[in-house]
């Protein structure tokens, strides 16, 4: 048992896979060991034993170099010798100095047994004997390790197992762990860098893609006659689904302010009619919904809308952004001034006796928020007075100023 080594299940240079078997138990001489129900893999150089699935994953497993094996025999298993041979006995030579650590440091036995639960596969047995006879490890390989000083001097010692793992790095102890962590970090770093390179490339290409798509859509427009109506429509819908039409986009402008100016113009153009319909005033939230619905794609953010609306006056639009003392922002037609609002609201107040914001919103078909602002405006101009009670906020015609005392 002291000839076994712990090692990662990897093939050495020049080593080849030969055979595999399952449900294998190892005996140290005649004694049972903890190594039961494992998997063995026979290579040209070694026998590897590991828990099921460990070896294919390259995890650490037990390794016995075939160099040690000088005699192989079968032992018939089972009571009364029934069921055919079940164990292979490997007679081993003395352990070499400097071998890797294994499951046992010393062992009184000079043989180990591999017990096959399902009986010995004759093909496996044959492959094993062949491999031991072939002594592939004795053949000089071009990769012969320079770390093995015995290679040249003694042909017998050349296959010294300790120097066999030419390519496998020694990863034991804290240093080993640290190194492997470092290695992992490096790899992560690399993959991140590569990923971001891809992203940057994609961003660079995005503009070209847009340009190409626009080209194509222009061509389609020109050649409307040649291509069937259906195809044109379908292609356009593809382009649309990619978000490419002709909306005012950030890309199309050099700077933010240009973009906002363009956007402000667009908002002004499309909102005039809408504002007329809704009584000359609309909350910014509603404006945002309307604008984005009109755009369909290439939606703008509320912030962009706000910034654009701030520029409405500079481009001479017939409407302006208005911020009420309460903080509510609205888009308001210039023709729709406070006095007008107060006057119409006052008329409604007179007609109804008193109004709550909710009631006004129903009558004037504006949002409650705006109705409230209207009433506040009217109040500010002295045409209404408020009544705050447990029933809520209501407004009345300002009798204080009209009636006197």
């Amino acid at each position, binding site marked *: 048992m002291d000839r076994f080594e712990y090692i990662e299940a990897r093939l050495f240079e020049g080593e080849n896979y030969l055979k595999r078997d399952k449900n294998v138990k190892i005996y140290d001489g005649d004694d049972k060991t903890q190594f039961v129900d494992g998997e063995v893999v026979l290579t040209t150089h070694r026998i590897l034993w590991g828990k099921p699935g460990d070896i294919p994953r390259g995890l650490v497993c037990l390794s016995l170099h075939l160099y040690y094996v000088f005699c192989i025999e079968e032992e018939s298993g089972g009571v009364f010798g029934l069921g055919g041979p079940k164990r292979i006995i490997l007679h081993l030579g003395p352990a070499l100095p400097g071998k890797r650590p294994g499951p046992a440091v010393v062992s009184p036995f000079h043989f180990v047994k591999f017990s096959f639960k399902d009986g010995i596969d004759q093909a496996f047995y044959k492959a094993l004997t062949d491999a031991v006879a072939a002594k592939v490890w004795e053949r000089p390989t071009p990769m012969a390790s320079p770390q093995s000083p015995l290679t040249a001097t003694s042909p017998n010692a050349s296959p010294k197992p300790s120097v066999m793992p030419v390519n496998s790095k020694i990863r034991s102890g804290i240093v080993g762990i640290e190194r492997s962590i470092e290695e992992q970090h490096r790899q992560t770093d690399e993959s991140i860098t590569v990923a971001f390179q891809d992203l940057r490339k994609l961003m660079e290409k995005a503009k070209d893609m847009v340009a190409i798509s626009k080209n194509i859509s222009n061509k389609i427009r020109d050649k409307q006659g040649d291509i069937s109506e259906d195809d044109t429509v379908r292609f356009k819908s593809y382009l649309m689904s990619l978000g490419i039409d002709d909306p005012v986009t950030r890309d199309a402008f050099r700077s933010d302010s240009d973009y906002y100016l363009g956007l402000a113009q667009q908002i002004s153009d499309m909102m005039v009619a809408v504002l007329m319909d809704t009584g000359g005033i609309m909350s910014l939230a509603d404006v945002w919904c309307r604008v984005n619905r009109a755009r369909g794609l290439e939606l703008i953010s509320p912030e962009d809308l706000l910034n654009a609306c701030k520029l409405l006056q500079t481009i001479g639009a017939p409407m302006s952004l208005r911020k009420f003392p309460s903080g509510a922002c609205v888009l308001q037609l210039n023709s729709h001034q406070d006095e007008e609002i107060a006057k119409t609201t006052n008329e409604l107040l007179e007609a109804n006796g008193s109004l709550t914001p909710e009631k006004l919103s129903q009558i004037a078909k504006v949002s409650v928020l705006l109705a409230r602002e209207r009433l506040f405006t009217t109040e500010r101009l002295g045409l209404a007075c408020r009544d705050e009670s447990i029933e809520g906020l209501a407004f*009345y015609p300002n009798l204080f100023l009209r009636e006197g005392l």
Partner: protein
Amino acid sequence: MAEISWPWQYDFPPFFTIQPNTETRAKQLEAWQQLITEYLKTTKQSTIDIRESQNSRLFNNTEINRKLSQEGILTILEDMQKTGRAAPTDKSKNVWEVYWHSLDEWGNLVYNWACNNGMNNSVCTLFELREGDNTVDQEFHGLDMSVLLKALKTLEGKGKCELMEFDDSQGVKFF
């Protein structure tokens, strides 16, 4: 208790909300002050306790289910204080004296009455002034003691009378 004629504002719900608009609010406060004065005059009261006043008919119109909040009452009273028509009697401004005449006016009223009745250089007790048969038709008849005292003190400051202490009551000598 004599019934007062409630002004139209009393049935106007916004009257019970202090208006934010400056102009409106000035009108509103004016109306309130008139109402308060009128009410106290009719009921012969001089003090308002803000903590209890919300139960009073003055600030609570049960018909339209509106009442003036304590802050509202305080606002009005503080506004009255600026014109000398009310004064808090405690630091927490809970109890207020309301003068439907200013203290000066009260003093003059009393002095005029004294002059007209030949009371110059004679002494009369405050009880006489408040409860006496001679003053039944006077406005200061039944006036709150502390208000009367303050009014007389302003008069004393002008040198028109002198307050004096008796064993169990106070008197005043008019010059």
